[in-house]
């Protein structure tokens, strides 16, 4: 309510009174019993379901929907009035943020005018650091693609952090959107109501059936060639994930589950991250303590070169593909 002016607040008050007059407390549908001391960690929740009398429930739901319908209209009126009111704090907020945005663009434009020129060869950014990445990168990391050499070898800790960001996001999305654990047996899947069956259109199915292997192949190519050509684990993994999503969209859940499902994704992702962390820990610990890590760099330009970059790209690819697919499944499977 803090964003409203006095008049707006009055309107809101009037409106809340109206709402309160039109609604009653809706009886709880699920009642949790008082907790016990040994409650922690057994996984089973003692849910005691109290079903109110059907007639009253229906009546109350009807009322609730009635309010729901009118709510948006009323609320928009209230907000409109509040915004039009010249003394409204909401208006001040909008004014202040517009001025702030204009100020930031002004300051940054002056900054840009003071920066080294775009595309100039003697910019300060092109210093000894970048030069070494380019000049000795091939020798030291074995990667033809200097960017891959930089992110997976020179500055590998950043990239480790980046994978952990992806992992964190997955954990939070799983937290928010995962339904109760389902067993992925065949009977269970068939039993679940509303199991996604895929699209009906035959041409689409044929086209996807033909292109699907190529999409996956292309993704794998990008992952494996990460140290030789543009791309790498992240982009290749995203392409593989997108291929899996397409497969699920067109052929439906049952067919898709043969390849992969959320639980498998979770395990694969954790496995990929474990291998990634293990490899990187080995290389960082040996590097930091001045031990030779004995990782063969291979012949520059061949597929098995680049030392750890090749396996790391594969790990990243697996992690990203699984993340993309599990995000997709979490978003689609979730329902209120």
């Amino acid at each position: 309510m803090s964003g409203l002016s006095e008049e707006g607040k009055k309107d809101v008050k009037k409106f809340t009174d109206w709402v309160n007059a039109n609604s009653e407390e809706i009886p709880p549908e699920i009642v949790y019993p008082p907790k016990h001391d040994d409650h922690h960690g057994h996984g089973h929740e003692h849910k005691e379901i109290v079903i109110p009398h059907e007639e009253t429930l229906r009546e109350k739901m009807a009322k609730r929907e009635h309010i729901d319908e009118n709510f948006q209209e009323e609320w928009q009126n209230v907000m409109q009035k509040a915004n039009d009111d010249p003394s409204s704090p909401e208006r001040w907020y909008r004014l202040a943020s517009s001025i702030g945005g204009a100020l930031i663009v002004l300051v940054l434009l002056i900054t840009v005018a003071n920066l080294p020129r775009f595309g100039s060869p003697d910019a300060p950014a092109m210093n000894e650091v970048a030069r070494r990445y380019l000049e000795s990168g091939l020798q030291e990391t074995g990667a033809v693609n200097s960017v891959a050499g930089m992110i997976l070898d020179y500055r590998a800790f950043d990239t480790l952090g980046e994978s952990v960001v992806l992992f964190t996001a997955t954990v939070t999305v799983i937290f928010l959107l995962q339904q109760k654990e389902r067993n992925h047996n065949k009977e269970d899947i068939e039993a679940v109501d509303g199991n996604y069956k895929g699209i009906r259109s035959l041409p689409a199915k044929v086209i996807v059936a033909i292109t699907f292997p190529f999409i996956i192949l292309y993704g794998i190519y990008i992952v494996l060639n990460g140290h030789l050509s543009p791309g790498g684990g992240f982009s290749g993994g995203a392409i593989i994930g997108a291929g899996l999503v397409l497969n699920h969209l067109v052929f439906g859940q049952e067919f898709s589950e043969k390849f992969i499902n959320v639980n498998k994704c979770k395990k694969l992702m954790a496995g990929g991250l474990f291998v990634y962390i293990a490899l990187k820990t080995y290389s960082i610990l040996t590097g930091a303590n001045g031990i030779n890590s004995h990782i063969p760099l291979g012949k520059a330009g061949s597929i098995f070169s680049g030392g750890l970059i090749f396996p790391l790209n594969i790990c990243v690819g697996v992690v990203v593909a699984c993340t993309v697919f599990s995000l997709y499944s979490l978003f689609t499977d979730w329902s209120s």
Partner: protein
Amino acid sequence: MNNIPFISIIISMIASIAMLLLGKKSKTALTLAKGVLLVVALLSLLLIPYFISTGGSITYMLGHYPAPWGNELRFGLLESLLAFVFCTVLLLAIIGGKNDIIEDVQSRKHNQYFALLMLLLLSLLALIYTNDIFTAYVFIEINTLASCGIVMVKESGETLRATIKYLFMSLMASGLFLISIALLYSVTGQLLIPSLFASITNLLASGTYRWPIVVACTLMTISLGVKSAMFPFHTWLPDAHGTATTSSSSILSGVVVKGYIILLIKIYYRVFGIENIRQMGVLQAVFWLGIAGMIFGSIFAIREKNLKRMVAYSSVAQIGYIYAGIGLGTYAGLAAALFHMIVHAYTKPLLFTSAGGLIAASKHSKLIANMTGAGRRNLPAGIGFLIGTLSMVGVPLFGGFASKVYLATSASETGYAFLIALALSSFLNAIYYLPVLFRIFARSDADEEYEKEEADFGYVMSISCFSIINILLGVGGIYIMHLLNQGVQIL
């Protein structure tokens, strides 16, 4: 010995991944989380005597490539001390908040909650130890996601609202941080902190690219200020800290906010150099914003009727103390600010944990008006709140008094504004904390209506550990101050 920080980061990383795979075994996850925290705390504790005896700091090469080419960690006395403080606060917060976790979080999601805590721990450790500004950005993002994650675990409407608000403000701040990194990179071509420092000192001395550096410094201050609830950007804090589950509130106010402040201190002292910051005028702005936070945070807290939100607003005031201490720009002021940070890191979780107990003892009502006699019904919570309050108000023998004394002595040379604000803020603290104290220990007519709460061992232990540490800081603060003074010199 050198490997300890890296190994602690990796341990918490592996633990968080393992927890996701545990399925429904939330008890195992809790034990694992406690174990990891204990191990990391002990490992950091090992570092402290090492650095006391040797002095100096260690630069740890992450990988095979030396300074400007690879990533680095850098740690000394200060960093290991702070890592130890953070781990212990996290540990005590989960032990103390266990009951509320069971109540607020669905049981099948417990292991995910602990996984988020581990991610939070690793990002905090990385923020403390990092010697590279882009690594700092990546781990800031982990920290943002994980801390928003632990706010939302309650999954009620108000926590969702608080999380979204917090998330959007933090992400805007991250954008500002990223653009300031881009500005710094384009004028210096460096990302590693020591190389940046050398480069920036040269540039400022020669007068080239002065404006981009000033803008980058300002934007970094704003961005980390938003994330650490510096005064005008604090609007997300009461919602997020006031609605989350008890242990999350404790962790957010105790350590998460501090992680960003430490990063800001590192940026001030080791990227730009404190004298340059003073010349740019940013330091003075930080000082006055800190003073404003001290006063306005307390005024907002007085108006609050909800206990947890009141405690949350008091955090705004305390963060104001810390920023004012930093804004003095002297090593003494910095050491005092860090000491205040440590005291606050132990006091605020104590207040939140006992507030959780008090709320549970008054039929889960968060309003202060309904808490008459709650401190009698749940005695550990009452005593914890008493000690926390006395420390906040600044009664001798408690941590808060010691830290205020150090802040005052460090400020005495620079002017009276700080001293006046300190006195005024302490007085305001008393105005809003003491009535609560009287209310919770008042005799209530309706005592019989409430069922007697069984005292929980973990809860009592957590409260008493926090209280003992608080009193120890109050009595033996001079020793910690000595360590901090030693630590800030090699910052």
